[in-house]
C-alpha cells in the first residue's frame, strides 16, 4: 500500500543564558559533575525558584522569529514524576498557558520548493540532570549540572511528510535560533534535542494513524536514519495487518534501530498543576515591541537580500544565509574582494570543504575573511588563475602566510607575457607534429577535444602559471596558421 508519512517534531532547545532558569548557578557545558548545582538545583528543603528574565526574553525572541502570538500572561506548572536526576520530583514547565503560541516558518527543500511548517507552541521549562550509568560498578551516578538549564520546548504541527522535510525543518530551526543568538544549537552537547512523533496513514486518508514517539535523537543524520527506520517498521506492521502501538521508542544509533523504551508501564500521570512558588509571568506589550525592534536580521530575510543584492542563486543564498557566522564571513569576503559571486563560490566550495575535511568550525578557520578576499583579488586582477588560487589557498590554510607572500615565494604569478607564451606554444606545436596533423584533419568537435592536449602540454611547460585565456587564444591562432601552411 502507499503510505503517507506524518511527522511532528518536539525540539528541546537549551537557551544560551549565563545562569539557570530558576537559580543563579552557571550553565556552562562540561564542568566537573555537580559543581554547577546550587541549593535550588539540588532541591534542598525550603529553596524556591526565581525566574531568569533572560530566558523569558529569549523565548519572546523566538516567538517573534516565527511570527507567533506572544503570551503576555503565561503560567508555570509542575509536572510531577520521580527520577533521580529530577531533584524536586517535579519539573517546572508550562502546560496550559505557554509563553509562545501558534507560529510558523518556511523550510526549503533540495528541489528548491518551499513548505510552510506550523509551530503549535513553544514553552519554557527546566532541564533535568543526567544519570551516569557507566563507571560506577552497578550503581548510577547523578550529575545535576544540567538540572535547571533553561529549555524552550518547540512543538511543531504534524506537517512534515518525510525524513528530508524533518531534517530541513531542524536545519531551518537551527539557523533561526543561532541567528537570534538564543542558543548555541550545539547538538553534540545536547543543546538541541529532538523527539519525533511519527505515524503512517493510507495516502489520501484524512485521519491520523497511531503514532510512536522516538525520544532524544541528537543529530540531523540520526533524525534522518531514525525516521527511515521507523517508517519501515510501521509499514511492516501495518502491511502485515497489525496495529502500531502508541509508545515511546529510543533510537539506537549503533544498531540503527528504534526500540521500545517503556513497555507496558502505566502511562505516567504527571499531575500538572500551577506552580505555587512562582507568580504568573506577565509581560508588557511594550517590552515585546522593544525586543522586536532589536531583533537581528533573520535567515529568511537575509536570504532574500543575498539574492537581490548579490545576485546569488536561491540555493547559494540559502546555504550562505543559514548561519550567522557564515553569512557574516561571506559578506565580509564579498565586500573586500568586490565580486559577490566569486566570493560565494569560494566560501561554499573551498572554505566549507576545507573546514569539513579538517573537522573545524568556522570560528577555527585558519583563513579569515580579509585573507580570503585578498586571495580572490589576485584572481580577479589576473595575477593568478583560479587553479593556482586553490594551491595558494591550501598554503594559506597550512599557515604559510598571506596570499601575496605565498604567490611571491612560490613564484606563482601567472605568465601573461605574450612573447614568452608564444614561444611556449610554438615549442609544443613543433614538438608534436603527429597531434598537429590529427588536429588539422579532424572536424570541429574533435578539434575541441584535441586542443585540450596542447593546452595541457603548454601548462606543463609553464608549471601551471600560463594565463589560460591567453594560451587558448595563442594556440588557436598558431594551429590555424599551421593548417594554413599545410593547405598551401
Amino acid at each position, binding site marked *: 500500500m502507499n503510505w503517507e508519512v506524518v511527522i511532528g517534531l518536539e525540539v528541546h532547545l537549551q537557551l544560551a543564558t549565563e545562569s539557570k532558569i530558576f537559580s543563579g548557578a552557571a550553565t556552562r557545558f562540561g564542568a566537573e559533575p555537580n559543581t554547577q548545582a546550587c541549593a535550588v538545583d539540588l*532541591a534542598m528543603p525550603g*529553596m524556591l525558584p526565581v525566574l531568569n528574565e533572560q530566558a523569558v526574553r529569549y523565548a519572546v525572541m523566538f516567538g517573534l522569529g516565527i511570527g507567533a502570538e506572544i503570551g503576555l500572561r503565561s503560567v508555570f506548572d509542575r509536572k510531577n514524576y520521580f527520577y*533521580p536526576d529530577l531533584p524536586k520530583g517535579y519539573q517546572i514547565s508550562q502546560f496550559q498557558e505557554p509563553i509562545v503560541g501558534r507560529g510558523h516558518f518556511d523550510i526549503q527543500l533540495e528541489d528548491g520548493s518551499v513548505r510552510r511548517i506550523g509551530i503549535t507552541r513553544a514553552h519554557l521549562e527546566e532541564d533535568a540532570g543526567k544519570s551516569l550509568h557507566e563507571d560506577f560498578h552497578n550503581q548510577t551516578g547523578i550529575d545535576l549540572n544540567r538540572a535547571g538549564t533553561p529549555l524552550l520546548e518547540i512543538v511543531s504541527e504534524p506537517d512534515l511528510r518525510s525524513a528530508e522535510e524533518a531534517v530541513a525543518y531542524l536545519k531551518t530551526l537551527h539557523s533561526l535560533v543561532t541567528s537570534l543568538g538564543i542558543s548555541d544549537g550545539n547538538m553534540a552537547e545536547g543543546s538541541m534535542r529532538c523527539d519525533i512523533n511519527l505515524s503512517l496513514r493510507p495516502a489520501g486518508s484524512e485521519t491520523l494513524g497511531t503514532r510512536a514517539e522516538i525520544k532524544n535523537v541528537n543529530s540531523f543524520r540520526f533524525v534522518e536514519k531514525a525516521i527511515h527506520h521507523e517508517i519501515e517498521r510501521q509499514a511492516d506492521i501495518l502491511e502485515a495487518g497489525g496495529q502500531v502501538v502508541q509508545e515511546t521508542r529510543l533510537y539506537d544509533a549503533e544498531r540503527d534501530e528504534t526500540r521500545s523504551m517503556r513497555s507496558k508501564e502505566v502511562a505516567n500521570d504527571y*499531575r500538572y498543576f500551577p506552580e505555587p*512558588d512562582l507568580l504568573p509571568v506577565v509581560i508588557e506589550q511594550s517590552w515585546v515591541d522593544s525586543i522586536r525592534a532589536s531583533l537581528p536580521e533573520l535567515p529568511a530575510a537575509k536570504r532574500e537580500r543575498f539574492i537581490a543584492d548579490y545576485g546569488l542563486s536561491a540555493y547559494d543564498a540559502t546555504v550562505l544565509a543559514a548561519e550567522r557566522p557564515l553569512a557574516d564571513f561571506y559578506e565580509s569576503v564579498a565586500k573586500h574582494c568586490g565580486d559577490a559571486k566569486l566570493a560565494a563560490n569560494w566560501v561554499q566550495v573551498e572554505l566549507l570543504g576545507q573546514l569539513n575535511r579538517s573537522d573545524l568550525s568556522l570560528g577555527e578557520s585558519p583563513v579569515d575573511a580579509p585573507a580570503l578576499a585578498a586571495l580572490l583579488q589576485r584572481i580577479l586582477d589576473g595575477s593568478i588563475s583560479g587553479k593556482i588560487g586553490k594551491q595558494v589557498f591550501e598554503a594559506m590554510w597550512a599557515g604559510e602566510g598571506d596570499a601575496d607572500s605565498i604567490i611571491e615565494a612560490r613564484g606563482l604569478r601567472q605568465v601573461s607575457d605574450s612573447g614568452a607564451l608564444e614561444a611556449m606554444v610554438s615549442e609544443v606545436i613543433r614538438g608534436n607534429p603527429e597531434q598537429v596533423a590529427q588536429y588539422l584533419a579532424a572536424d570541429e568537435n574533435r578539434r575541441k577535444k584535441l586542443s585540450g592536449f596542447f593546452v595541457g602540454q603548454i601548462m606543463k611547460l609553464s608549471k601551471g602559471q600560463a594565463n589560460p585565456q591567453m594560451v587558448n587564444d595563442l594556440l588557436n591562432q598558431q594551429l590555424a596558421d599551421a593548417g594554413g601552411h599545410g593547405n598551401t
Partner: protein
Amino acid sequence: MHDLSVAELAHALRSREFSSTELTRHCLQRIRSLDPQYNSFISVDDAGALAAAANADARLAAGEQGPLLGIPLAHKDIFCTTGLRTSCGSKMLDNFVPPYDATVTRLLRDAGTVLLGKTNMDEFAMGSSSETSFYGSTRNPWDTTRVPGGSSGGSAAAVAARLVPLATGTDTGGSIRQPAAFCGITGLKPTYGRVSRLGMVAYASSLDQGGPMARSAEDCALLLNAIAGLDPLDSTSSAHPVEDYTAQLRQPLTGLRIGLPREYFGEGLDTATGDRIHAALALLEQQGATLVDITLPHTELSIPTYYIIAPAEASTNLSRYDGVRYGYRCEAPRDLHDLYTRSRQEGFGDEVKRRILVGTFALSAGYYDAYYRKAQQVRRLIRQDFLDAFANVDIIAGPTTPGPAFGLGAKTSDPLAMYLEDVYTLAVNLAGLPAMSVPAGQAAGLPVGLQLIGPHFDEARLLNVAHQLQQASDWHRQAPVEASS
C-alpha cells in the same frame, strides 16, 4: 527575668541590668529543667546560643541599640538554620543539617537575636496538635495531659512556659494562631507574602506564612519588624511597603468597626469559649469599637477546600524527599523503586502519608477538575467573602478555635475531628489575610484565644487592636502555674 517582655528585656540589656549572656544562660537553664515535661524543643544549641549572646554583648557594649539585640528566641524547626539540624519534626530530616539560613533566620541573626534552639512541631507542619512529630508530642504547659495545638505547638508551649520570650512559627491553616490560643500566648500570621518563605521547609506553598509568637502584641510587632519585607529570592513575597509595626500600637480604638461573622459563633462553638470571646469583645467595645454582625457565607467550605489545596501542594512539595540526595534513606535498597518506596515509607509518618495520598489523588488525571480546580474556584469565593466584609468593617473578630486544648490522643485516631479544629482559621490562609490570636482569659483553667482578622497588609491595625486589648486586660500576662515558678 523570664517574665519580662521583649521591650523590657531590651531595655534591661541596654541599661546593663544584665547581659545577654546572663539572660541566655537563664533561658537555657529553664529549658534544661522544665522542658522535659513539655518536650517543646527538638534541638537546644547551648554553644551556639552562648556564642551569639557573647557577640550580642559585644555589640551592646559598642553602643549598638537594635530592638532585638541580645534577645533569646527559638525557631520552629521548619526554618533552616546553618549548621543546626532542621528536622521539620520528621524522621525524614532527622539527619538534615542545612548549609544555609532561611531568610527569616538570617534577618533575625543579623538583628542580634540569640537562637536557643529549634522547637517541636507536627511533622512537616501537618497537624493541629503537635502529636505527629517524630520527636514525640509536645505538652501544653497549662495542663500537660493536653495538646499545645499545632503545628507550631513547640514554639507556643516554649513561650507560654516562659522558656523563651520570643519564637517563630508558621501558619498554613492556623498553625500559629491555634497553638497560640491553646497556650495562652499572642501569635500573628502575617499576610501571605509579607514574610519570606525562603528556607522555610514547604508544606503548602500558596498558604504557608511565617510569623511571630510571643506573649504580647508589642513583642510580636518587634519581631515582625525584623522579618517583614520583600525577598528577591521568594517570588511570592510582596513589595508592599513595610511599616514600623510598633508605630500604631497606641492608637485609640474609637470608631473601629469590628465585624463578627455569624458563622464563627454558631453551632460547634464551646459555650465557655464563646463567653470568653464575648467578654473580650465587650472590652474592645468599651474602648470605642463598634461591633457589627457580618456574614462570611462560604466559611463551611473552607475545610474541604483547604484539605484539597494543602495536600495537593504538599504531595508534590514532599516529592524531593526521595532518599537520593539528603535526609533519610532506607537500608540496602535493592533498586531505585525500592529506594523510593522504603525511604518514604519509613521516613514519613502516617499523617504526612495521608496528605500525600489525598493530594496525589486530587491532582490525578480525571479528578483534577472535580477537586483541585473546584477548590481553587471556591477559594476565590472565600476570599471574596472577606473582601466584601471589609467594605463595611475594619477588622473581623471571633474565636480562634471552637474550644480549648483537647487531651493528648483525643483526636489522633479521627483525622476528620482533628481537621474540624481548624474551622475558624483555615479561611484566613485561603484568602491570604493577616490574622492574630490574642489571649482572652480562661475557660475551666485553659486559655481561650480571640482571633482578629484584618485586610491584606493591615498587620499594624491588628497589632494595634491586640495591644489596646492587652492594655485593658492582663490575660496575656497570665502564666501556667509551673512556668511562673
